[in-house]
């Protein structure tokens, strides 16, 4: 093992120098920001693999490996001392969180609630931290950034970059944003010479850039081909050099082989292979649904059918002068259960999606010093996972507590000693 004492400052210095080198050689570019998960090429109209789904598959695999590792390292008998630094770290975290949750929910439903808390915590924290891993969000399929009108087949060019090809691996060239032939006419001679000196192909006097492929000659069926279909070959060729014989200037190729990878006649962008699943509403909303539905399940398990009186409270409607208020409060509670789903899913999505955009923008603005923001996002990711799990635990313990009037004495004592944040006990 390396003795790290006094050496960490050099690590920071090396990171800073590496950042400056990166800024001078390959300055980062802002990727295409899209709220839904980006689809993988191919797949037809129905099922699409998205990069956020692939990210969550990766997180599942990591969690399963973690479970096997912890199970293998766990001492089989009581007097055995556990070995391994990571196992000990995990045990400290686990025991600390166990005590913390025990204080909130009490002993009775601890097993049920804590399993949900810990699962959600590990899953969400791991998927939040996935956005900090270098390859995620930056390596992916090379795709032409064009949109095609479904009926007319007219191509609209979006913002994109030219590519450089180094040994079959295509890299977006950050010095050369793509310029369409019509926009190139408006450039001054100086600007064109400047672009040419940077090695750009479009927007220069050389006019290497071929005119856009003729769409009018294509059959309507080919013109209506979805964009994912057209880029299939491009995605494959991003890793391996195939199909590069086509040079710019070939006229109207077939729909599937429309653009060779790196063809300077179209702008190119990257669809990442992996993306943090927390930046996709599908992941957060499904977790929120699981949390809220299991809260109801636990409520019914703890209180039986009388759990429903929390929402439909007609008991005091005629006996008490203010009975109508109880009914209204119950209905508000019912609405609140649905609001929980929304607030759970959007809190996580908003935090992590905004965090990943923050990382993109900061890597673009200050390429030599982005890592303070990575540290910030590290803490935000951990905190959001913790808040998601903690709120689930608190809602579950509220569901077991039931309505103030009807819970037995023994249960009440548990609530008092458990420091339950729900104010029930002092009223009696």
């Amino acid at each position, binding site marked *: 093992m390396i003795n790290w004492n006094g050496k960490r400052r050099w690590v920071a210095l090396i990171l800073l120098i590496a950042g400056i080198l990166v800024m001078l050689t390959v300055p980062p570019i802002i990727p295409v920001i899209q709220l839904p998960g980006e689809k993988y090429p191919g797949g037809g109209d129905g099922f699409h693999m998205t990069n956020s789904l692939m990210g969550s598959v990766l997180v599942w695999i990591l969690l399963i490996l973690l479970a096997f590792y912890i199970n293998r390292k766990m001492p089989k008998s009581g007097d055995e001392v556990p070995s391994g630094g990571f196992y000990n770290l995990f045990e400290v975290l686990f025991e600390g969180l166990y005590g913390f949750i025990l204080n909130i929910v009490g002993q009775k439903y601890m097993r049920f609630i804590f399993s949900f808390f810990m699962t959600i915590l590990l899953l969400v924290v791991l998927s939040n931290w996935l956005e900090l891993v270098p390859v995620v969000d930056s390596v992916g399929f090379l795709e032409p950034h064009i949109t095609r009108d479904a009926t007319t087949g007219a191509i609209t060019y979006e913002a994109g970059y030219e590519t450089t090809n180094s040994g079959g691996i295509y890299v977006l060239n950050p010095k050369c944003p793509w310029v369409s032939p019509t926009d190139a006419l408006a450039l001054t001679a100086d600007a064109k010479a400047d672009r040419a000196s940077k090695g750009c192909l479009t927007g220069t006097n050389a006019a290497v850039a071929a005119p856009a492929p003729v769409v009018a000659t294509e059959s309507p069926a080919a013109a209506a081909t979805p964009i994912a279909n057209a880029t299939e070959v491009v995605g494959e060729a991003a890793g391996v050099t195939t199909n590069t014989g086509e040079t710019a200037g070939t006229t109207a190729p077939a729909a599937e082989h429309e653009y060779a990878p790196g063809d300077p006649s179209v702008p190119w962008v990257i669809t990442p292979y992996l993306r943090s699943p927390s930046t996709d509403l599908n992941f957060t909303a499904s977790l929120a649904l699981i949390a809220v539905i299991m809260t109801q399940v636990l409520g019914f398990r703890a209180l039986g059918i009388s759990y429903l009186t929390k929402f439909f409270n007609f008991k005091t409607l005629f006996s008490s002068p203010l009975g109508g208020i109880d009914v209204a409060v119950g209905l508000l509670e019912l609405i609140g259960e649905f609001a929980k789903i929304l607030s759970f899913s959007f809190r996580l999505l908003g935090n992590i*999606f905004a965090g990943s955009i923050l990382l993109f923008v900061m890597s673009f603005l200050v390429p030599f010093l982005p890592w303070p923001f990575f540290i910030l996002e590290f803490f935000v990711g951990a905190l959001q996972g913790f808040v998601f799990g903690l709120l689930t635990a608190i809602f579950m313990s509220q569901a077991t507590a039931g309505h103030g009037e009807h819970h037995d004495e023994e249960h009440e004592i548990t609530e008092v000693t458990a420091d339950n944040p729900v104010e029930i006990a002092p009223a009696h």
Partner: protein
Amino acid sequence: MEHSVLFAGKAIGAGLAMIGALGGGIGIGLSVGGAVQAMGRNPDFASTIQTNMILGVAFAEAVAIYALVVSLIILFVL
């Protein structure tokens, strides 16, 4: 031209949507301030207070996050 006007509208709308973050900021400041005062007065209950504080902060923050999500949707989805 049309595209520029559209983009200007999106940018203004996204900026206006983020006014909602004001409430979340005030709420978080008030609740954390109150929690810190309470912890200073009776440190024995610091853990309970902290739990409730995190819960309250998460709720207050949720409102600001809704504003953020709205502005992100305006910018990147619409």
